[in-house]
């Protein structure tokens, strides 16, 4: 069964450092997403991406965050200058279309900011 793969599975970084989380979505999917889950809290939407553009972003997704699909297969989330409160599990997801459809999630990348 096709799956979404994420790397790294766990990253530890110092506050203020840049972090890039990588995702390989399912190959025929056109819509890409990042969600995050802070420990003990809800899974929260960060951003959706389609046709090389951000289609929607949450208020969490401020200027410190960016997404990119650099080579047609990878989908990356960059945090420019990490803060303690960025510590969370970050999930990448993809879907064939945006309507009443199913998002397929990756296993997540755990980010720990010290």
């Amino acid at each position, binding site marked *: 069964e096709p799956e*979404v793969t*994420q790397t790294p599975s766990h990253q530890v970084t110092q506050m203020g450092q840049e972090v890039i989380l990588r995702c390989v979505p399912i190959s025929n999917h056109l*819509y890409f*997403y990042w*969600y995050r889950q802070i420990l003990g*809290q*809800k*899974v*929260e*939407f960060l951003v*959706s991406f*389609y046709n090389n553009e951000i*289609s*929607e972003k949450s208020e969490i997704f401020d200027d410190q965050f960016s997404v990119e699909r650099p080579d047609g297969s990878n989908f990356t989330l960059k945090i420019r200058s990490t803060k303690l409160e960025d510590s969370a599990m970050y*999930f990448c*997801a993809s*879907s064939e*279309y*945006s*309507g*009443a*459809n*199913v*998002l*397929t*999630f*990756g*296993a*997540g990348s755990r980010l720990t900011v010290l």
Partner: protein
Amino acid sequence: DQQVKQNSPSLSVQEGRISILNCDYTNSMFDYFLWYKKYPAEGPTFLISISSIKDKNEDGRFTVFLNKSAKHLSLHIVPSQPGDSAVYFCAALVSSNTGKLIFGQGTTLQVKP
């Protein structure tokens, strides 16, 4: 953001019995709902969905019921199995243009052998 709420943080049932997980939402514009299951160290896995034009959708042991007037949905698992032990999230599709989902807090289901 309390638009999707799962008020029971945990549920424990005996193997073979029915598990009922509940979810409430506040926005009557939501018209598509999904249930995801999550095991530790894994991402959420899609389980079952329902459109607002239906009040029930069934897939094997899993049935989702939607009560639009009460803004309530529930997931029934019959019979429950120990392998069903996981965190269950309900989610609402917020935007059909962008595919954005809003999740509930999750309910941890433990099925005891």
